[in-house]
């Protein structure tokens, strides 16, 4: 059957339209909500650092300069808070990282007290471990923390250049991450996350790279390189900070001096990105931490703007 020129034209236009739609149908993220401002009242924050989201989409935020943890519901409504400056159980001196286990317990890195504290979902103190030092179970400025599906706790021990693993009751299990064992020196790594396959993802901030390790510290993959400014490509980073993984295994990276979140697939291949402050400049507003909620939403901490941003993925062209 011979096709008419009109039919061919319509067919070609249809193919072009479908192709264009497919290309543009990558996931986008729209800002749903933003909450927080500078202050010390409930719901206000002073230089928040890391964030963790539980199974009910409640967000726990490390309110660093208020020396406390704040818990919000998924709409950003304040629920409760705990902590104050100090060294006693339940007190903090510049807390940094935060993570949640399968039972909803909350682990907080108490950075300048060189310890990790464990709390109930209501903020009741349960246990702690660590003090300043180089021995197993001790820390020299712990930063990021993550908990895997078996409730094994991973802590970045920054100035001992290692990752330490603990049981859920904070008993030391093992350590890894030395330059000899991984083949390079992690340079101010800040955040850690668990991949969908159980591997461990590390933001190697001053190396501008992301590294993936097995649970025992064997290097699986290392990707990214330095890029900053208008010419920066996806997959390049300038001081990548917070990292998180969603239920599909996608990896979110706070590319802080590019003022954006980059989304990578589980192989580290760039998928999409968005600017969190809306502009690409050297303002002091930039993303420092990210968490993926069970509802697919993404929560971003802006350290210097003292706020939390909640983004929703969309598939609209």
């Amino acid at each position, binding site marked *: 059957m011979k096709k008419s020129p009109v039919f061919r034209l319509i067919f070609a236009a249809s193919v072009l339209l479908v192709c264009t739609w497919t290309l543009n149908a990558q996931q986008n993220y729209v800002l749903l909500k933003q909450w927080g401002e*500078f202050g010390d009242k409930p719901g206000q924050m*002073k*230089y928040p650092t890391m964030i963790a989201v539980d199974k009910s989409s409640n967000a726990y935020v490390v309110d660093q*300069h208020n020396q406390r943890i704040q818990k919000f519901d998924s709409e950003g409504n304040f629920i409760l808070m705990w902590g104050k400056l100090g060294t006693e159980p339940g007190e903090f001196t*510049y807390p940094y990282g935060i993570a949640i286990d399968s039972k909803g317990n909350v682990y907080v890195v108490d*950075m*300048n007290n060189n310890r990790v504290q464990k709390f109930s979902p209501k903020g009741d103190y349960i246990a702690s471990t660590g003090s300043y030092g180089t021995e197993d179970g001790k820390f*020299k*400025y712990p930063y990021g923390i993550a908990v895997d599906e078996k409730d094994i706790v991973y802590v970045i021990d*920054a*100035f001992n250049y290692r990752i330490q693993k603990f049981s859920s009751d904070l008993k030391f299990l093992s350590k890894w991450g030395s330059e000899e064992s991984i083949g390079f020196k992690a*340079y*101010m790594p800040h955040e850690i996350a668990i991949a969908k396959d159980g591997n461990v993802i590390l933001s190697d901030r*001053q*190396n*501008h790279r992301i590294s993936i390790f097995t649970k025992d510290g064997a290097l699986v993959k290392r990707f990214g*390189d*330095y890029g*900053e400014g208008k010419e920066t490509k996806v997959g390049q980073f*300038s001081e990548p900070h917070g990292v998180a993984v969603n239920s599909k295994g996608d990896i979110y990276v706070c590319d802080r*001096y590019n003022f954006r979140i980059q989304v990578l697939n589980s192989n580290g291949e760039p998928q999409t990105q968005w600017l969190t402050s809306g502009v690409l400049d*050297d303002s*002091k507003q*930039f993303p420092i931490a990210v968490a993926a909620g069970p509802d697919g939403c993404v929560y971003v901490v802006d350290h*210097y703007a003292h706020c939390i941003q909640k983004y929703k993925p969309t598939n609209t062209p």
Partner: protein
Amino acid sequence: MNTTRLMRLFLYALVLTLLSVNFIIAGGGDKPRKCILVFGAHADDVEGMAGGTLAKYIAEGYQGIYVCVTNNLAGNQIEKVPGNWDFGSGKLTAAITLSPKMYQVDALETMQIQREEALQAAKVFGAEPVFLDFCEPEFWMGRKLIVYGSEEFIKFDPPGRKQISLATRYSEDVNFVVALLRKYQPEITIMHTPGGEKLDHGESGYMMYLAFKRAISQGIPVGKLWTVSRGWLADSVAQQSGRGKPDVRIDVRNHLKTEFAAWSKHISQNGGEIEKHIGLRRPARDRSFEEFITILDNSKQ
């Protein structure tokens, strides 16, 4: 018991009490060995002021106290790692991070990094590190310098005691340094030039001067207070008066290795290669001798 015997007993008791009080005020106890205390404003200032002298006296058996007066909020360029910096051009060479610039890192990280480096440096000397945590007047927030008094500085409220120049105005802060002198009773204390070459340096020097005077007045057995001759004291006009001339000259040629090894621990400030770093200064200072001016001498009391 007659009145005279009672009076005698009372007098003995009084003398014993006074001796005990003086003993307690002075810090008491057996001082196991003589002490040298170097009062540097920032991490690495001890080395720059008197690193060779500290090494020499420790080698001679003195207890060495390595004091870092401020909390080191500022001044950290994290890209300065060994082999990563061209000392001639001041630019990065084989940059590990590939970043084209040497950015400062955030305030809390800077404090941590420099404290760790100072701990390592003190260990090289065999000295006891002491951190007083007086606040620096500036820090980095992202890539923006925040200065004392600004809205951002107040909001950030960095950890630490008062800013050092303010602290010299307050008795409680001077007493904080007096307590340090009471604890160590140093035979030799070395400080920056009061009012000297940099804000924190000069104010740290002045703070020690105030504390040292107060320590003497309280009967604390401190010895000599030396200052380096820098800044306005080394100014040619000031030198014409004949004042500001060093009266102490320490031969440190046999201790330069220790000094440089300690100094090179401050990687974030000198790239871990201090000999290249100070070699850039023109004219390079002969480091074979370290010279000081005696400001106060309580050693004959």
